[in-house]
């Protein structure tokens, strides 16, 4: 599903690169944690996969397509196959919760009928069934994060990227979201999740890719959070 070969990303010439010679190979159907200190390059890795940014060096292949070679006009179609939970949510401020989630379906041309059935269902799954008519700035931080999650998988994409999707959630709600992600993963969706939640990583025992200063320092099946112990 995802193949990264010798990927390096420098944001500026005079600064050390955010990612250095990263090699990662993720099969379809896997569930992978990406851990690392603040600023170690987790978000950069995820942005590379959605082609929000291009690598300085190396090749990235997602769902069989080489992202560096990809034509600009094809990018939207790539993104429709990737659900993405952003670290800063990226909700449209002048759309309600319902409209934000429905938007991901409108964009790919789903019929109104499909939208009317799927959106309420996914809102129920993340526990926001009664926040449909609220605008983002009327939601708590954790609620906004859940809207972002709902939008990411409302169209059942084959690949789900989640950048600290539980950062603003209390442990209980986090657990709910994690079990949801597990269930999604069991239906065949590949999941890559950047996180700081040590408890979560340690209890789930899934594959863990650890970054430090932009380098992969550990890639371990059934791993733990590590660091600082």
């Amino acid at each position: 599903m995802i193949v990264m070969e010798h990927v390096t990303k420098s944001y500026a010439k005079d600064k050390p690169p955010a990612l250095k010679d990263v090699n990662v190979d993720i099969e379809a159907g896997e569930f992978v944690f990406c851990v690392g200190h603040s600023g170690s390059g987790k978000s950069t890795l995820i942005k590379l996969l959605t082609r929000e940014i291009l690598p300085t060096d190396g090749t990235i292949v997602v769902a069989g397509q080489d992202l560096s070679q990809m034509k600009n006009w094809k990018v939207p179609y790539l993104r429709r196959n990737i659900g993405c939970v952003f670290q800063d949510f990226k909700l449209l401020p002048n759309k309600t919760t319902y409209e934000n989630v429905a938007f991901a379906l409108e964009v790919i041309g789903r019929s109104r009928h499909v939208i009317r059935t799927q959106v309420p269902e996914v809102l129920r799954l993340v526990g926001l069934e009664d926040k449909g008519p609220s605008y983002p700035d009327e939601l708590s931080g954790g609620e906004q994060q859940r809207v972002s999650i709902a939008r990411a998988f409302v169209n059942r994409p084959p690949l789900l990227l989640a950048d600290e999707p539980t950062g603003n959630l209390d442990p209980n709600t986090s657990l709910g979201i994690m079990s949801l992600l597990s269930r999604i993963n069991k239906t065949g969706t590949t999941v890559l999740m950047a996180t700081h939640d040590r408890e979560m990583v340690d209890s789930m025992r899934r594959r863990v890719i650890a970054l430090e200063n932009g380098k992969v320092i550990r890639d371990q099946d059934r791993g733990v959070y590590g660091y600082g112990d």
Partner: protein
Amino acid sequence: MAISPGYFLKEAGVSFRRNWVMSLGAIITIFFSLLLVGTFVITGILIQEILASVEEKVMIQVFLKDGYAPEDLDPLQTSLVEDARINSVEYVSKEQALERFKEQTADSPEIVDQLPNNPLPASLEVELVDPEDVEAVVVDIKAHPNFVNLIANPEDPEKDLKYGAEIIDKLFQLTNVVRVVVIVLVAMLVFVSMIFISNTIRLAIYARRKEIAIMRLVGASNWFIRMPFLLEGVMQGLIGAALAIGVVVVMRQWLVPWLSDTLPFLPVTLSAGATAQLGLILAAFGVAIGLIGSIFALRRYLRV
């Protein structure tokens, strides 16, 4: 990809309502620009008409010698009447000429009374369709075989053939200057409108740049992102044009009558046809400005 076309209309409408501050700004901008264009076009039309009415009064006078042979006059008069460039040919007898002279010198009528006999010649007054043809017509008249027989000074025909060449030249110069000035002003205003509108839509895009970035990340195609902006621009253009047309119609109802009351000696009229034409022009302008403004702003700020 069966995207319902209704989506974009809905989207444009919703964004219109939610960002009404900016929409209103754009509409006001377009409205005023078109209003100014409309005012200038109307002013232009009025000036055209006034000038035309002055130009109409330009004519060629052929003075006839006392005791000319009427059989010499007839062929000339006929050939002039048949000339397509000529509007009308009028014969003025010696008596009529003296009558006119009396009217002109009404200040000191005693002069006319003191005249022992009528010294004024009879004449032909030739009115042209287009005053610009005057020189050509004059040449043709001089070339007419009967011309020399009709006039008092065959050796110096200029004396008996008057067409106020200088006044006509001055008038043409003035007309042309006025035309150039009006055209330059209208062009300037259209340019200003374009800048204003493209600027407004650019700012609208600027204010929504985060939204646009998010749309892209969620997988919206370029046209999907652009469409609502285009529709919004066109909608704003249309509304602005509608307002401008409304004001123009009101102006026609109230301002034109007032003007022709105040300036009874100038022909100030604006036909219903011209008004309708102007309305169509303004509507087209509004749509074009909205569309071009949007496209321009989109090209610069939505490069993908």
